[in-house]
C-alpha cells in the first residue's frame, strides 16, 4: 500500500470523525505535520510480521469479571454526578438539541 499523503480535505474529514473543530489554516498545517509523522511511522513496515499475531494486551490475563452485585459505595448522589456540568436542569444534564439522528 502506498504511503498516505495527507491533504487538508483528509484533515477535515478526520477532524469531523474526531469531533475536533479546526480552521482551514489549521487543516493545512496539520496535513504537513501528519505527513512528517507518517514518514516515521512508515518505517514500521520495513520489518516482517509474517505469521505474527497482534498483541492487544500485555497482561496475559483472561476472564476477569465482577459478580452481579450493586456497589452502593461507588454510586454517586445526583448532585455530585451533576456537580461538574456546565448546564443542568431538574436533575438532568442539558445540551443544545441535537439535530442529527444516530
Amino acid at each position: 500500500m502506498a504511503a498516505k499523503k495527507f491533504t487538508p480535505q483528509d484533515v477535515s474529514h478526520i477532524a469531523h470523525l474526531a469531533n475536533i473543530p479546526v480552521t482551514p489554516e489549521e487543516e493545512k498545517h496539520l496535513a504537513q505535520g501528519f505527513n512528517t509523522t507518517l514518514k516515521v511511522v512508515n518505517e514500521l513496515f520495513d520489518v516482517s510480521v509474517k505469521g505474527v499475531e497482534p498483541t492487544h494486551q500485555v497482561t496475559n490475563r483472561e476472564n476477569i469479571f465482577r459478580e452481579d452485585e450493586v456497589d452502593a459505595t461507588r454510586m454517586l448522589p445526583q448532585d455530585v454526578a451533576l456537580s461538574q456540568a456546565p448546564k443542568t436542569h431538574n436533575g438532568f444534564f442539558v445540551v443544545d438539541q441535537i439535530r442529527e439522528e444516530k
Partner: protein
Amino acid sequence: MKKSYEPVVGFEIHIELKTASKMFCGCKNDPFFAAKPNIYTCPVCLGLPGALPVPNKKAIEWTIMLGLALGCKIPLFSKFDRKHYFYPDLPKGYQISQYDQPMAVGGKLSIGKRTIGITRVHLEEDTAKLLHITLEGKKVTLVDFNRSGVPLVEIVSEPDIRTADEAKEFLKKIHQIVRYLEISDADMEKGSMRIEPNISVRAITKKKTLPPYKVEVKNINSFNFVKRAIDYEVTRQTIMLEKGETPVQENRGWNEERQETVSQRGKEEAADYRYFPDPDIPPLRWTKSYIATLAGNLPELPGVKEARFLKTYGLTASDASQLVETKKRADFFEEAAKVAKSAKTGISPKEIANWIINRDVDVVETLPAGLIKRMQEAKTGLDLSSSELEEVVASVLKENAKAASDFKAGKQQALMFLLGAAQRKLKGKAPVPKVLELLKKKAGS
C-alpha cells in the same frame, strides 16, 4: 405483466438484561423505575476521566445461554471492542460492544415450517436516555444516565423473513424464549426490548441474490406496529422497484401518527466506528465443559416443552401450544397435573388444560392445588359450565318424561320433582336458581 416481488427482512433486536447491576460497574440496574434522573451513576457509567470497566459475569453467562437457546455455536474465544461515535447519550464517546468475535454465532429459530437464521448474539452496554424539550424558549436535550451502562444483548437475524406475519411470529418467539430464560422482561413499552427491521425487496426471479440495499426502520414501539411498518415499507420499496428505481440504503423512522416511514437525513456515508479491542478488558476464553455446564442450566425451552406435553399428556397441538406460551403457565399446568395424579382425583391433564385455557385461570395468584380442588368441586356440581348444566337438565327431563310433561301441563310440584332428580345427579350441589331456570326453559319448549 408486473414482476413479482418478495420482502427480504431481517431483524436487529436489543434486549436489556435484568441483572441487579450494570454491565461494567456496580450501579443499580433499574432505569425504568428510577424515581429521579441520574441517581444510578458512578464514574464508570458516567464516563468520568480515569474510570475503567469491569464486566458483569452474570450478564455474560445469560448472553451465552441466550445464544445456546437460539441454537448458536459458542466460540471459545471472545472479547469486547470499542465502537466510536459522538452523541450526548454516549458518555465515553465510544460504546463497549463486540465487533468481530461475538459471544454466539450461527443459530436458528423455527417459526412454523420455516427456519430463520440467527447471525449472531453479542453483548454491549446501553446508552443514556434523552429527552427533547424546550427550556426557556430554547430547544434542548436532557440527558439521564440511569440507563447508561445497562447490559444490552443484541440479536441479529439473517434476512430470512418473507412476510410481515412471519416477522411478528419471529419476534413473539424471541420474546417467549427470552422470558423463559428469565433474563429480561423484554417489554417493548418499557424499552427492555427494542426492534429494528432491515427491509429490502427483490424480484422473485432474483431469489438467490441479496438485494443491493437495505432500509433500517427505527422507532417501532410495539409488535402491532412491526407488521404495519413492514407492510408500509415493502409497499413503498416495491413501487419504486416497479418504476425501475432502487431504494436508497438509509435509516428511516416509523411515524406512529402518520403510519408511515420517514427518511432520517444525514446518513449518506456509512459510519466509521473505528472498532478496536478494548485494552481495559481482558478477553474471554471458555472451555467446552464450561459451555456444557451453561447449556445444562438452560430451562426446558418452549419448543421442547410443547413436544413433550403432546406426548406425555395426550393434549391437542393447540392446547399444548397455548399452555407453553409462558413458562409460568406451563409449570403451573404440570404441577396441577402432578397434584391431580398423586391425589388420585381422576381429573385428566386434558381437563386441566381446558380449565387453564378456557377459564383464564390466574396462574400467578392461584396455587395448582387450589385449581385441582376447584375442579373437583365443580365435578360434583358446584361449578359446572352452562353447557354442562344444560346437558344435565336435558338428561333429567329425558329420564323423567312423565314429570316433564306434568310440569308442561302446569303441575308445579313436577318442577320440584325434577329439581330433586337434578340434585341427585349433581350430588346435592345443584345451583338451584340456574337449574330451575333451565328446567322451565327446556320443559316448556
